[in-house]
């Protein structure tokens, strides 16, 4: 029997089916995503500004994705019971606190009431947390069940929630990375919004993170003689990393772009697929000004903050 056509057809069938499963289906399912709304009706994601997009190409060209990943993982979700407002009836509230959290003494309960909002219980299911919140709402007190994603990445502060498909909508190339020789960068813009820190870290990683294994990227910077006074862009380093006296370190356009890109990396908006409760600023009840700032932007859950 001539097995040639059989082998060909077998290979064709096998590859065609995996093509349908992992090329066509993802394209239909997540390849046509559009900008979506977060849970609080703001568009997400926002396209990166131009300098950050250039920075993405610098990131790609220098192979940063071979040491850094850009995907936060999540292994579970728990609910917290959070008391947000104390209301007016303190004794009833203290009794309720003791019902919800058995073993809480009165002094502890009184101490708890200062510095709200504060979580009372951690790690419950949604139903138990809703129940607990309802019990606490006596005498005008307000309590909520907060949804908190959990996982080693989140515990390490690498993100508040897991990364999902729509986080990568406007990037080319998308580089979620496969090695973590360095920390995950998906949300680095939230934990390190300082451009200068990023620039100093690129020039001398060991200056900002002692013991770091990251190689220095000095070729992205220019060491030049101070002519008519120090440049406003010059970076300042501790003594062992500073250049010789009379010289200053100035970032090149590539370094500035890369830093802008890193600072633009955020995944802190709650979405349908990855719900979590964003802690909003405490409400001000004494002035007429909007709580949390003097801008027009809402104080909570805005991805541009």
């Amino acid at each position, binding site marked *: 029997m001539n097995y040639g056509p059989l082998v060909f057809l077998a290979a064709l069938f096998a590859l065609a089916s995996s093509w349908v499963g992992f090329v066509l*289906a993802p394209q239909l399912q*997540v390849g046509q995503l559009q900008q979506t709304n977060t849970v609080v*009706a703001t568009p997400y994601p926002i396209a990166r500004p131009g300098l950050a997009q250039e920075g993405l190409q610098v990131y790609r060209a220098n192979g940063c994705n071979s040491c850094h990943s850009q995907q936060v993982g999540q292994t579970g979700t728990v609910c917290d019971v959070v008391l947000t407002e104390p209301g007016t009836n303190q004794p009833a509230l203290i009794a309720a606190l003791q019902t919800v959290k058995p073993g809480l003494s009165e002094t502890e309960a009184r101490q708890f009431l200062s510095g709200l909002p504060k979580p009372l219980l951690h790690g419950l299911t949604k139903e138990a947390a809703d129940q607990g919140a309802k019990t606490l709402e006596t005498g005008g007190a307000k309590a909520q069940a907060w949804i908190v994603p959990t996982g080693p990445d989140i515990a390490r502060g690498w993100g508040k929630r897991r990364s999902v498909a729509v986080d990568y909508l406007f990037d080319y190339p998308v580089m979620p990375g496969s090695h973590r020789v360095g920390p995950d960068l998906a949300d680095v813009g939230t934990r390190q919004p300082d451009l200068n820190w990023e620039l100093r870290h690129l020039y001398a990683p060991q200056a900002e993170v002692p013991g770091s294994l990251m190689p220095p990227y000095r070729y992205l910077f220019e060491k030049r003689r101070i002519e008519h006074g120090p440049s406003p862009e010059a970076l300042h380093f501790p003594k062992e990393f500073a250049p010789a006296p009379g010289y200053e370190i100035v970032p090149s356009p590539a370094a500035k772009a890369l830093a802008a890109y890193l600072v633009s990396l955020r995944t802190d908006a709650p979405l349908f*697929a*990855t719900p979590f409760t964003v802690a*909003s600023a405490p*409400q*001000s009840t004494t002035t007429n000004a909007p709580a949390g700032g003097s801008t027009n932007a809402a104080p909570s859950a805005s991805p541009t903050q």
Partner: protein
Amino acid sequence: MNAQPNPGLIEKAEAAEPKAGRTAVPVWLLVLTLVLIYWGMVYFDHNGGWFHQQVYSPYHSLAEVQRLQLSSAGGNLERGRAVFENSCALCHNTDGMGKPAQAPPLAGSEFATGSPTRMIHIPLLGLSGSLQVKGQEWNLSMPAMGAALSDEDLAAALSYIRQSFGNKASPITPQQVKAVRAQVGSRTQPLNAAELNSMQ
């Protein structure tokens, strides 16, 4: 002549091309394959989210994700509060007390605690002209802030207003919002006091 340059290279007779025996695949291997396929099906059933686009690990089903959403049902006002703070608090203030010469208060307002249908009309069409709220005269104009919101978001925000700042009124459902939207149709002209006060 012209024998191979290194006649001694392939000393032993070159073994014939390999052949393969015809032993059958052991049955236990086939059984193991079937067991693993079965395990795969169970594993997929548990973890695969049934191909749903919005189900990411660690969630196992769409229902699990939906349960964790903020909703205005069951007295959970988080979503409404978020929409309110985004859209309404700029003028009406986060504590619902309003701002002089900008927006009337919502706390204790008859329009906020009264008829649901009337209240829904306000953000959908906006207001203009003189209006009495809580005995005070307000002669400003309100844009149709709710026109761009979805039914769920607007219902959540209005429910939040009706159950906060000391107000104790019934929540508003997305279906009610939808009905009023259908009623309003393509009208863009804001309401005035006469129309508002004559509504049920």
